């Protein structure tokens, strides 16, 4: 076998191996998307009921709570950025990071100091590499977040928002995550979690035009709101974590699918090149034999003379 042909054969073998791996990763990601979507669906009843309850207390009482009142002069904001621990997901992480950077820029233009909280190794690595300050980071659960993880993420944020701004607390809480629209579409979105705007919450739960009953609060409206709002934040963060996980798996699936397709294409091209090389080798051999034979014939013819 000629050297050229051997090189092609070797490359085909290596690309075939890569293709097998990406194909497997694609299928794993596809099954994980379904699982993640199911988790999003399973967490919906809780989120819905909680949202309803928040709307009910918010509209049914005149209670003022630090988590629902807007600061007159917001000076500090917290941004929670959700990324994934692992890459190989196309532009998934860079889109989320870009969205967070745009939001940060906007908030800073409006005169707010921004504290960044990060979930996922990818986002953390991005910020660390640029030596930007990260208030707190959480890693290790982005593929399959549990409610306990959401609580863990929410705890320092709630603490920060309850503290006075002068003591290092924040006035606002924003979250940047990747919304799972469909298998093909995932968009990085930012939304303000706190202070809570009740109109938005009502719109979300579909209770905008519904007249809510006059609730009897046990033990009191303040206490209920006190207990309710942290749970609401946790549930929203949990939902965002789940959506982000589903989006990540969908993005991985897509990235791996195009990698598999590319590998297939490359194998085709290389096979054609290898065939051409083989053919060239044969042609060369034939022409060498023919050349040799005619040289021999010429030589014999010469000796006869």
């Amino acid at each position, binding site marked *: 076998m000629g050297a050229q042909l051997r090189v092609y054969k070797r490359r085909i073998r290596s690309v075939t191996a890569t293709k097998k791996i990406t194909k497997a990763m694609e299928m794993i990601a596809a099954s994980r998307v379904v699982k993640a979507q199911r*988790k999003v669906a*399973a*967490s919906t*009843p*809780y989120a819905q*009921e*909680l949202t*309803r*309850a928040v709307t*009910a*207390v918010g509209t049914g009482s005149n209670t003022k709570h630090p988590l629902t009142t807007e600061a007159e002069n917001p000076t500090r904001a917290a941004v929670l950025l959700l990324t994934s621990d692992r890459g190989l997901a196309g532009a998934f992480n860079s889109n989320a990071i870009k969205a967070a950077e745009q939001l940060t820029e906007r908030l800073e233009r409006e005169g707010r100091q921004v504290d960044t909280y990060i979930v996922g190794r990818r986002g953390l690595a991005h910020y660390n590499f640029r030596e930007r300050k990260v208030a707190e980071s959480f890693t290790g659960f982005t593929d399959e977040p*549990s*409610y306990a993880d*959401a*609580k863990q993420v929410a705890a320092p944020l709630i603490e920060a928002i309850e503290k006075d701004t002068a003591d290092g607390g924040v006035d606002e809480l924003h979250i940047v995550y990747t919304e799972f629209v469909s298998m093909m579409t995932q968009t990085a979105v930012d939304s303000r979690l706190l202070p809570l705007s009740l109109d938005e919450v009502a719109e979300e739960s579909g209770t905008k035009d519904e007249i*809510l*009953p*006059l*609730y*009897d*609060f*046990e*033990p009191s409206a303040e*206490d*209920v709101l006190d*207990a*309710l709002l942290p*749970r609401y934040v*946790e*549930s929203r963060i*949990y939902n965002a974590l789940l959506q982000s996980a589903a989006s990540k798996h969908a993005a991985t699936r897509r990235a791996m699918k195009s990698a598999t397709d590319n590998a297939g294409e490359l194998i085709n091209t290389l096979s054609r090149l290898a065939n051409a090389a083989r053919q060239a080798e044969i042609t060369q051999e034939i022409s060498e034999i023919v050349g040799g034979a005619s040289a021999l014939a010429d030589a014999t013819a010469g000796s006869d003379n």
Partner: protein
Amino acid sequence: MAAELHVALVAADREVWSGEATLVVARTTSGDIGVMPGHQPLLGVLESGPVTIRTSDGGTVVAAVHGGFISFADNKLSLLAETAELADEIDVHHVERELERAKAEGDAHAERRADVRLRAAAGR
């Protein structure tokens, strides 16, 4: 047919139980509360403790809930809990071991959780 109310017991990551009931007893921060059909709209904070649901077919469902809310309106009752388990799902031996471990480690929170689960399991 006796009046009934629709109960949904939901935990953060799943719906634990839902169905029709005639009476629901839960523990709020200000004491035990029983809700029957036609109760006044109510929104309360739950203590961790067992919740007893008397279903309309005469059965009883007991669940252990840890932190959460009870809300009732339009004959629909929602029990929201961060974690909730039906008594049937609780493995008594496992929880007893957990309780002992919590006691040994002096983890009051874990001890309380284990205690609530045991009481719920005993009430089934």
